[in-house]
């Protein structure tokens, strides 16, 4: 019998670290479906959840997996699922349900190359735009991109904390390489790990409005069986949670679910800068490609090219302000990602013509070698 927090020094894969991060964050329900390269998350947590009082269930497909996760969260339990491209596609409709009903949950996408079945065992970062816009309609989402097993452990905890704080689905956009690489992971003592739980209602039950926002724009969440008699629907609803089919209700609801994120960007957005102080070229990267980019920046510096790296830990919401400010002072941007241009176009949009933006991309199946980045750094500017 192991405790929920496996304090100590380990050698583990990103996928296993993700499962352990979830447990440390308080996750006690996992609804899953096997898919390469995310299966190890389900395998690890299937073994671990029962011993910490949680429940694992392998559902009949990914649609059922995400539906069960949202149901479990509505019952008051921190919940997660993990998948890869094809399964992520199947989950999209219910990610929208979680966004609309403001139900906290964490979805891990260990990305592999697509489209369709693609390269199931080989990495990519090509679901980044799907992460942002995959479900129909407008909504805001939070997506984090870990760059090592250790980072996966921490980002998973952070994903739960953000999800609970803001009552929305949070995506962990890992990839096959980070998911399968084995590295040292240090798990700290349980008491040093900060975990957050959703805001809960107080006061008279008959006056409670389940979607009336609190000071930070987030409504306290009543859970099933507490006696609040709440109604929760994926239809456009008012603060009482009742369906209202009007333009006004739509505007009010959308303002609320988008405002929760847009009003709290300072808390949600995290980036990391490396040699950026005097940088003339800003390399933008995230996830596994950060590692390529770090090597490339160091090598470029040795060659006299003043490059720096801005690593996006939070990819969505996109750090627009940071890119806009950088565009005022750098000669240009180079975005490094394993796809044919996704975040690159976001960088280009925010640069707004003030600095050119280049892509070092790849259709997937392998990491991008530092040489490709250096080549662009040398030739583009």
């Amino acid at each position, binding site marked *: *019998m192991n405790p929920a927090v496996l304090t100590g020094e380990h050698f583990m894969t990103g996928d296993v670290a993700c499962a352990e991060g979830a447990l440390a964050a308080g996750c*006690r*329900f996992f*609804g899953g479906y096997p898919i390469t390269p995310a299966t190890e998350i389900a395998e690890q947590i299937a073994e671990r959840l*029962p*011993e*910490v*009082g949680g*429940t*694992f*269930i392998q*559902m*009949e*497909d990914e*649609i*059922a*997996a995400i*539906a*069960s*996760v*949202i*149901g*479990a*969260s*509505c*019952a*008051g*339990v921190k*919940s997660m699922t993990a998948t890869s491209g094809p399964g992520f596609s199947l989950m999209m*409709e*219910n990610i929208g*349900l979680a966004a609309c009903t403001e139900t906290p949950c964490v979805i891990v996408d260990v990305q592999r190359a697509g489209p369709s079945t693609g390269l199931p065992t080989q990495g990519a970062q090509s679901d980044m735009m799907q992460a942002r816009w995959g479900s129909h309609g407008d909504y805001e989402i939070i997506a984090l991109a870990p760059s090592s097993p250790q980072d996966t452990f921490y980002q998973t905890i952070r994903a739960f904390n953000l999800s609970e704080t803001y009552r929305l689905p949070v995506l962990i956009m890992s990839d096959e390489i980070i998911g399968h690489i084995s590295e040292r992971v240090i798990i700290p003592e349980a008491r040093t790990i900060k975990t957050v739980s959703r805001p809960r209602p107080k006061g008279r039950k008959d006056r409670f409005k389940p979607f009336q926002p609190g000071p930070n724009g987030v409504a306290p969440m*009543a859970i*099933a*069986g*507490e*006696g*609040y*008699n*709440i*109604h*929760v*629907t*994926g*239809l456009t609803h008012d603060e009482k949670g*009742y*369906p209202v089919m009007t333009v006004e209700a739509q505007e009010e609801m959308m303002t609320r679910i988008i405002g929760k994120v847009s009003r709290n960007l300072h808390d949600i957005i995290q980036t990391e800068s490396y040699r950026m102080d005097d940088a003339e070229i800003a390399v933008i990267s995230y996830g596994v490609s950060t590692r390529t980019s770090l090597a490339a920046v160091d090598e470029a510096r040795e060659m006299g090219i003043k490059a720096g790296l801005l690593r996006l830990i939070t990819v969505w919401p996109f750090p627009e302000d940071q890119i806009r400010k950088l565009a005022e002072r750098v000669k240009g941007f180079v975005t490094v990602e394993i796809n044919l241009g996704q975040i690159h176009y976001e960088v280009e949009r925010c640069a707004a013509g003030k600095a050119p933006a280049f892509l070092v991309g790849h259709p997937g199946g392998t990491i991008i070698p530092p040489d490709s980045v250096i080549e662009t750094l040398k030739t583009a500017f």
Partner: protein
Amino acid sequence: MKLNKQQTTHPLDDLLRIDRIPHIWCPGCGIGTAFSSCLIAMKESGIDLKKTVMVSGIGCSGRGAGYVNLDSYHTTHGRAIPFATGMKLANPELNVVVFSGDGDLFAIGGNHFIHAARRNVDLTVVCVNNFNYGMTGGQVAATTPYLSMTTTTPMGNPDTPFNLPLMAYASGATYVARWTILHARDLTESIEEAILKRGFSFVEVLSPCPINYGRRNKEKPIDTLKTYQEKTIIKNDAHPTELGIDFDRGIILGKFVDTNLPTCSDRYDNTCRPKDLFEEEGEGI
């Protein structure tokens, strides 16, 4: 329930979101009757209503969750059962009732139904079967009888419908019954038994959709009810293979399965959390 002439309230008012009435259901629709039966059954069963949740999918019947004054969840199309599964497994103390329609539960959601029944998740599933997609205007469903007219089978339905109780039985449901809305007392009793049953319970309710199904099949609302009276046979314990929908031969109603088996949560706890292991090691949770 005593009726009082002076009464200005409905005996189910406490279970209804009165501020959401009038409901969307058409005149002659049977969902209201099925819904009332479900609410009466919830009350009469004596379960703790504070711990009782209604989960619906999408469609006319799926609006049930919006009118019940309990914790209620109106989910995505076809996904009420997996949502309810997560909810029940996360908090086994909850009584979870899925109230939805045939299109939602058996076409788009059919896969979830058979798996929840296989696992014997302790849910009560009430399916209002009106043989078509009512909300979208009367399209063919997985339950539409052979040769029936719908907007997407303008020459008649070339396919045969599911026998829902057979599917429930074959998938492992521990309680299976079928009634029509004309058999409201039997229906209510069945739903009550289904709610009190520990295990996956399924109650099919045949229900008229005069606007979209009846009209296209030259069946006046009163004719549908007459059919329910004249073309049905109550045969408890009938073998599920006999339960196909065939109005010429007659539709069999009744309770077909009522058995006790360990639930999904029981099996999970016994297999994954064996008591001896937990006690030996001391603290676990």
